[in-house]
């Protein structure tokens, strides 16, 4: 492949690939777990639709990370400005709230409803916290069956707060993994390399005997490291010795095969 024109490229590309690999390996499973958990929680709340919104950017606008229900696919493309609407308030203030009784005048979740054609009748929104930061909002919308819907009760609000505590670490892990993936993608852009080519190459090495061998070594290391602190220390020292030796020999073969 025509990738190794300058001396730093190989090392840079390796870092980018590792970063992108790490992100890619985690993003999809975490996304799937969040959606599955959301489905279970919605059933527990007897709710028709549920979603997880996350804060993004310095302005703190919200985007739908995950959604289940009738308009789930449309929601994924929608962002809500900071402090706007019920979910914006909950994210900005950290205060959970439940809203009902729209009396058919106009949906209170107006902008999102306008974009999706959905009719929000009752809504429970509770903040998602990681450490002491609000990272997003967990929402339950409407009930199963036909309106009018029974409003969310104080007990359901308490339950939703517990659910939020359960799902928040997953959301935080997803966002971290996504950040790694995005950094990897940005790294590709910065090198000016055709990402399609790099991906193709990445897939090739994944299928290669060398890659499988690397994975086997990684599993061996994990097995050793999981035994005790003494084994971990020994393993670390051996590996560091090998890396120093390899650096001295300058025999890296990552891209040349």
């Amino acid at each position, binding site marked *: 492949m025509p990738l190794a024109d300058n001396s730093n490229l190989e090392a840079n590309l390796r870092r980018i690939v590792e970063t992108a690999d790490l992100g890619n390996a985690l993003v999809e499973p975490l996304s799937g777990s969040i959606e599955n958990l959301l489905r279970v929680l919605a059933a527990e709340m007897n709710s028709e639709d549920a979603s997880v919104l996350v804060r993004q950017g310095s302005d703190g606008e919200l985007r739908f990370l995950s959604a289940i229900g009738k308009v789930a696919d449309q929601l994924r493309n929608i962002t809500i400005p900071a402090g706007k609407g019920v979910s914006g308030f909950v994210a900005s203030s950290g205060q*959970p709230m439940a809203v009902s*009784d729209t*009396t058919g005048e106009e949906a209170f979740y107006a902008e999102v409803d306008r974009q999706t054609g959905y009719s929000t009748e009752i809504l429970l929104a509770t903040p998602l916290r990681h450490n002491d930061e609000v990272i997003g909002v967990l929402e339950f919308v409407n009930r199963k069956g036909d309106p009018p819907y029974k409003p969310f009760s104080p007990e359901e609000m308490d339950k939703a707060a517990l659910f939020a505590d359960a799902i928040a670490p997953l959301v935080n892990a997803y966002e971290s993994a996504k950040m790694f993936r995005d950094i990897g993608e940005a790294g590709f852009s910065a090198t000016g390399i055709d990402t399609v080519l790099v991906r193709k190459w990445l897939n090739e090495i994944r299928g290669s005997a060398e890659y499988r061998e690397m994975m086997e070594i990684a599993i061996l290391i994990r097995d050793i490291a999981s035994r005790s602190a003494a084994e971990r220390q020994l393993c670390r020292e051996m590996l560091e010795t090998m890396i120093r030796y390899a650096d001295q020999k300058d025999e890296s073969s990552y891209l040349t095969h």
Partner: protein
Amino acid sequence: MHPPSELEISDISDFAGLARPDSNWRSGTGRGISVAIVDSGVDTEHSDLTRRVASSVEARAENKRILFDPSSSGDSAGHGTACAGIIARIAPDAELHSIKVLGPGGLGDGIAFLAGLEYAINQQFRVINLSLGTTKQQFFSPLHDLLDRAYQAGCVVVAAANNLPQPSFPSVFCSSLISVSKSEETDSFRFGFRFGETIELTAPGVNVRTAWPGNLYRSLTGNSFACPHISGIVALILEAYPMLRPFQVKSALYAIAAAGKE
């Protein structure tokens, strides 16, 4: 309004008398009492709120400082209007002052919230409704200082509790403010006092029907809707006894709540 001097402080000696059904505060309307609503703004066009909002300001970030400008942007989320509607129902003649600290344009972080509280204290509004909170440790100390300033200035700060396992500020600073959590009570004038608890007061906060932007109404549930019930009642008590200090207001609330349980 300026805080009273030491000699003017005590204009009430019979707290138990406040609990009587014919006590004079119950027939009040909050006239002459200023109530700040530090929140998402207030829809001043709502029919429940016309001519009741004496001022509206909005936080603006500039060079890492927060400034307050006159606001005509209304309510970005509905929450501030809902709180104002509850206060106006209980104390219809209270002077409402909207301090918007939530909304687009970088607002909504804790700094704007603190700045809004400081603005309300500097204006010496008698009651400050804080249906907001934060769990960020970095704001613990500055909030504590601000609440001490509020206490010294004679401002009664009423804050909503948060349904969280970890402490949220300012609701845990129970000595310098009044913290409120929701109850299923439906009578706006019936509230509870949980003696010895961090969150001392309970007030109606379940399916509370109140104003919503666009001249609408919504039924809302949350601690943040219990808080304005107490703010409204404090406005009534201060109208009847304008010289009360914050600790006396809390004693009055306790006396009324304790009598209500009998």
